């Protein structure tokens, strides 16, 4: 993590010496390299762009002509967006949007808080069975969610939590813990031991060390994992389907979009605008906090 983290952010700032890749590229005669890059970039952007353009076209136009004809016959309307938010369309995206937010906030905060406490214990306190327990939690990362869903649903039925946000909050929080503990633990180990020792000598206990020494240093790691978890929960479909599939009261926006695609698969005026409403939050979060997100990604994969 130490080496990976700065790497993710530095390159934009430092116009350093030529890299291997750059030389390779130069010698590949630049025009071809640029062309190849542009082709990939265009290929990767066109699908989203096409749907975005469609979401602003009138329903008749979407269903009769391709979105590329928009440029010879530009008619723009906001009707599609009104339709997905309005009551008559039966889509009511606003409600599901609120649900998504309500699911996300506790599902990010709870595992972050619990995991930082646990990571602190693993990183800075000696106790019996520490290594074994840490290894066990690390190993839990590989358990696919699928293996847990049905028994967990049965537990929720037994304690009468089905159809409430609690199922999603608890499930998402639990599933996030192994990775969160592992990443935060790694990050905490990087903090010099002298800092903690000094605080202890001054008579600080583990609670005040956690809040006064650890937490301020931990902010970038918490931000990275927080964004990661937020995107994961916001974009999740499987957990929502299993625990909130029955009722619309707690279903997130992804679930409504998936249902819409299943039941009204040709209603492109609703699907296009609906898709963009669901995308807007994660894309904004991503663009604003890209730095932290990339750092989290590198910590989780390169050094994971």
């Amino acid at each position, binding site marked *: 993590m130490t080496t990976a983290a700065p790497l*993710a952010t530095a390159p934009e700032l430092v116009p350093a010496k030529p890299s291997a890749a750059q030389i390779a590229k130069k010698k590949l005669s630049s025009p071809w390299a640029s062309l190849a890059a542009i082709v990939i970039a265009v290929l990767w952007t066109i*699908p989203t762009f096409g749907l975005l353009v469609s979401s602003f076209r009138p329903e008749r136009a979407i269903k009769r002509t391709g979105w590329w004809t928009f440029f010879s016959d530009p008619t723009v309307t906001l009707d599609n967006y009104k339709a997905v938010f309005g009551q008559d369309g039966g889509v009511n995206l606003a409600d599901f949007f609120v649900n998504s937010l309500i699911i996300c906030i506790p599902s990010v905060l709870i595992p972050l808080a619990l995991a930082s406490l646990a990571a602190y214990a693993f990183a800075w306190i*000696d106790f019996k069975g520490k290594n074994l327990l840490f290894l066990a939690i690390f190993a839990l990362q590989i358990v696919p969610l699928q293996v*847990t869903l049905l028994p967990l649903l049965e537990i929720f039925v037994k304690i009468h939590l089905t159809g409430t946000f609690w199922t999603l909050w608890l499930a998402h929080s639990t599933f996030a813990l192994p990775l969160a503990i592992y990443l935060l633990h790694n990050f905490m180990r990087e903090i010099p031991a002298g800092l903690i020792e000094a605080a202890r000598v001054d008579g600080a206990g583990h609670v005040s060390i956690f809040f006064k020494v650890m937490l301020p240093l931990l902010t970038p790691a918490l931000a990275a994992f927080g964004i990661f978890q937020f995107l994961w929960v916001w974009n999740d479909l499987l957990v929502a389907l299993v625990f909130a599939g029955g009722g619309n*009261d707690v279903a997130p926006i*992804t679930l409504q979009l998936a249902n819409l695609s299943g039941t009204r698969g040709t209603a492109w005026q609703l699907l296009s605008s609906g898709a963009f409403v669901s*995308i807007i939050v994660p894309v904004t979060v991503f663009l604003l906090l890209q730095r932290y997100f990339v750092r989290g990604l590198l910590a989780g994969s390169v050094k994971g």
Partner: protein
Amino acid sequence: MFHTASTTPEKLLQMLAALLLFAAVLGVILFIAGRIGGRSGDKYVAYLYLLPVVLLLAVGLVYPGLRTIYESFFDAAGKAFIGFDNYKTIFTDSDQLIVLRNTVFWVVFTPFVATGVGLVYAILVDKSRFESVAKALIFLPMAISFVAAAVIWKFMYEYRPDQANVKQIGLINQIIVWLGGKPVQLLIESPLNSFLLIAVMIWIQSGFAMTVLSAAIKAIPDDIIEAARLDGVNAWSMFRKITLPSVRPTVVVVLTTIGIGTLKVFDIVRTMTGGQFKTSVVANEFYSQTFRADNQGLGAALAVLLFILVIPIVVYNIRQVRQSEAR
């Protein structure tokens, strides 16, 4: 507090209550931990800090996991013990064999193509003037949900019958028509449809591969590059002899990470075809069997199979990471 909230104020109130409850629990833990003094009390602080996590993991992950393994040996209703019959079904039933075949397609093609595209693109845009914009374009699909990505691509694959006054609205079919072909029902033709779904996953994962590999490329020490340059090494050998060996450990980690993600992919298949037209994969079949076809036993066996398939990839991944850290 534990009922179903149905209006927005009610929902917000419930969320607030939940957060307060959680804060209270944390407060109690920290209060007790604060009262434990001295180094001899250290381990009690640790147990206290770990208590909620261990409880949640035990109830929410370990127990359900073991329970699913147990249930995979029972019949559809979860009543009668049938030994390995569910597993036998997975490997003999003709529908299930197609599911396995598709899963192999997914796991072989997605990681390699996505990593290839990511690597090439990372090299092409490295230190160019538009690097950050160029990267953001490829990376953006990572922020989008699989469901929205599936909707985006379903629109690309849209089919309109081949009639005189009917125009194509899906770009792929329009291109086929422009090239003089007849429009194809892209999501219905098997096995073509599976590959078209795989393309969506590649579209999403290439950005991940690109970002991680780009960081690795930038980490190659300058002196190595400088030396090679002075030797007059050409572009292809520079790539083959320096870039590739330097980023090899990262390439393996990226491949395996995407491989694991691909094994569990479910949203794309469900949203685009619902697993029909011979496009189902293990993760989707698990959902259909468990929650649609009410075949608990087979569903559990498919979940366990997923688990078993993930293990070797993860072990390999961890070993590679260890090696690259040791260097």
